[in-house]
C-alpha cells in the first residue's frame, strides 16, 4: 500500500514523482500558449513527429542515452512543425489538413523504423517502444535532472519574453506593426513547445503527450481571466496530475504511469469544465435557471 512517506523514502517512486511533477509544470505552463494560439493540434503533430527522430537517433548513433534520443526527437518534431508551416504556406492545403498529414506520415515512418529496429538481431536491447506510451518507471535521477534543468531554462526564456509572447499570442499582426520580430518570436515559442513535448516523451510517450500540453491549460482557463494566473494554474494542474499519476501507478499493480497521469489530467479538466465559477457548465445552468425563474416571475407580475 502507498503511504505518503514513500514519496520521501521509496527511491523509484520519488524519482518518478519528481520527474512527472517537473514535466507537468513545464508542459502545463508552456501549453497555455499553444491553447491560446489555437495550436493544440500542433502539439499532437509535434509529439507524433518526434517518433522517427528517436528511432533514427538510435540507428545512427547506436546509443540509447536519453539525451541522444531526445535530441533526435526534438529535431524530428521541429522538422514536422516546419513541414506543417511549409505546406500551409506553399499550397492551398489548410492548416488542420497539413497537421493531419504530417502527424500521420511522421508517425507511420516512426512505426516502420521501430519495427525494423526490433527485427534486427540485437533487437532485445532496443526497447525504444517505451517512447510510444512512455515508461516512467525507467526514469533515472539524471533523466529527472534533464527534465527539470531544460524545463527551467525554457520557463526562464518564457519569463524573459513574457510581454512579447503574450502580445504575439493575442494579436500577431499588431505586434508586427510595433516592430516586434514576430517571425522570430513565433519560432521561439514553437521551439519552447517542442522542448516541452520532447521532455515528456520518456514519461508519457508520443501518443499521449499532447494531453500534457493541452489539458492543464484547458482546465486552468476555466478558473481565471488573467493569462499569468492561467499559466500558474496550468503548472499547478500539471504538477498535481504528475504526482497523482506517479502515486496511483505505484499503488495499483500494473497501472502504467503515463496514461494514469493523463487520466488524472482528464479528471481535472472535467471538474474544471463543470465546477469553475462563471465559465463552468453547472454554474451556467444554475444561472440560467435563476434568470428564467426571474423572467417568469416578472411576466406573471406583469400579467397580474
Amino acid at each position, binding site marked *: 500500500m502507498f503511504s505518503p512517506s514513500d514519496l520521501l523514502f521509496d527511491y523509484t517512486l520519488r524519482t518518478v514523482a519528481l520527474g512527472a511533477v517537473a514535466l507537468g509544470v513545464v508542459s502545463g505552463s508552456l501549453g497555455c500558449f499553444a491553447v*491560446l494560439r*489555437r495550436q493544440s493540434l500542433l502539439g499532437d503533430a509535434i509529439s507524433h513527429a518526434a517518433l522517427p527522430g528517436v528511432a533514427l537517433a538510435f540507428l545512427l548513433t547506436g546509443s540509447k542515452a536519453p539525451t541522444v534520443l531526445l535530441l533526435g526527437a526534438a529535431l524530428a518534431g521541429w522538422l514536422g512543425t516546419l513541414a506543417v508551416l511549409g505546406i500551409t504556406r506553399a499550397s*492551398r492545403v489548410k492548416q488542420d489538413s497539413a497537421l493531419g498529414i504530417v502527424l500521420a506520415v511522421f508517425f507511420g515512418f516512426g512505426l516502420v523504423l521501430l519495427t525494423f529496429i526490433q527485427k534486427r538481431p540485437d533487437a532485445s536491447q532496443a526497447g525504444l517502444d517505451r517512447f510510444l506510451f512512455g515508461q516512467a518507471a525507467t526514469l533515472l535521477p539524471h533523466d529527472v535532472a534533464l527534465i527539470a534543468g531544460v524545463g527551467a531554462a525554457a520557463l526562464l526564456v518564457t519569463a*524573459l*519574453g*513574457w*510581454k*512579447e509572447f*503574450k*502580445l504575439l*499570442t*493575442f*494579436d500577431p*499582426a*499588431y*505586434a*508586427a*506593426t*510595433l*516592430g*516586434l520580430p514576430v517571425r522570430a518570436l513565433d519560432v521561439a515559442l514553437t521551439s519552447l513547445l517542442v522542448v516541452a513535448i520532447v521532455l515528456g516523451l520518456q514519461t508519457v510517450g508520443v501518443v499521449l503527450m499532447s494531453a500534457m500540453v493541452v489539458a492543464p491549460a484547458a482546465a486552468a*482557463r476555466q478558473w*481565471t*481571466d*488573467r*493569462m499569468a*494566473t*492561467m499559466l500558474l494554474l496550468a503548472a499547478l494542474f500539471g504538477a498535481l496530475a504528475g504526482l497523482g499519476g506517479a502515486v496511483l501507478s505505484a499503488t495499483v499493480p500494473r497501472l502504467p504511469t503515463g496514461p494514469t497521469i493523463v487520466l488524472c489530467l482528464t479528471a481535472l479538466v472535467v471538474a474544471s469544465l463543470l465546477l469553475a465559477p462563471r465559465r463552468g457548465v453547472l454554474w451556467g445552468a444554475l444561472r440560467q435557471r435563476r434568470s428564467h425563474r426571474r423572467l417568469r416571475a416578472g411576466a406573471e407580475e406583469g400579467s397580474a
Partner: protein
Amino acid sequence: MSTNGSAHAIEVNDLTVAYHETPVLWDVDWAVPAGVLTAIVGPNGAGKSTLMRAVLGLVRPAAGQVLVHGRPYAEQRRLVGYVPQRGSVDWDFPTSVLDVVMMGRYGALGWLRRPGRRERELALAALRQVGMEALRERQIAQLSGGQQQRVFLARALVQDASVYLMDEPFQGVDAQTERAIVGVLQQLRAEGKTVVVVHHDLETVPEYFDEVLLLNVRRIAAGPVAQVFTEANLRRTYGGRTAAAHPLG
C-alpha cells in the same frame, strides 16, 4: 525616424498586391497629406484593408513602394499607430482592458522591460479619452462590440504616433462609440496628426473626413472630399450599383 522631408504623411507608389494569382490592388498611386482625416472608400473586395496592411508591411506587395513622411515604412514604424479590425483577434483571451491598452507601449518599451507606472498612466489617459476608464479591469470578452473597438482605439492612442491607420473602426458600433471615435479623430487632427480610416458608411464621409480615396482594386479618385466625392466617381467605384450613396457592403 523623422516627420520632416515631405508634406505627405503617406506616399504609395505603383503599389500592386496579389493573393495567389489574383490582383487585389493594381498599380495604386496615392498620397495622404499630413494633418488631415482621410477615408478609404470602396466596395467589398476593393482592397481597402489590403492597402492598409501593405502600408504597414503586413502583406508583401508584388510591386511598388510605401513611404511614411518621406522614408520607407520600416524606418518610420514608431510614427504609425494601427487600429486593426475588431474581428481580427479572439476576444475570449484571458486579459483585461487596461492590459490590452498597455500593449500599445510594448514596442517603445523594448525588451525585458515590463510595463510600469508610466505605461499604466498613459493607458488610463487613453481609456479616459475613449470613455472606457470605468471598465479598465473588465475582461475583454465581457465588452460590447463598440467597447472592444474603443479598447483598440485606446491601444493605438498610447503609441503616441503621428500617423494613424484604422481599419473599419465604425463597423457595427453603437452610437456612443461612433461619437467617441469621431471625437478622437477630431482631437487627433487638432494635434496635427494624420488619420486614415477604412470607411463603409458613405453618408458620413463628407461630415467626418477632409480627404477621400475611392478604391476598387485600382485607384478611382483621390483628393479633398468636396472635389472628389461625387456621384460620378462613386458610380465608377461601385460599378453603378450605388446611385443613391447606399452601398450594400
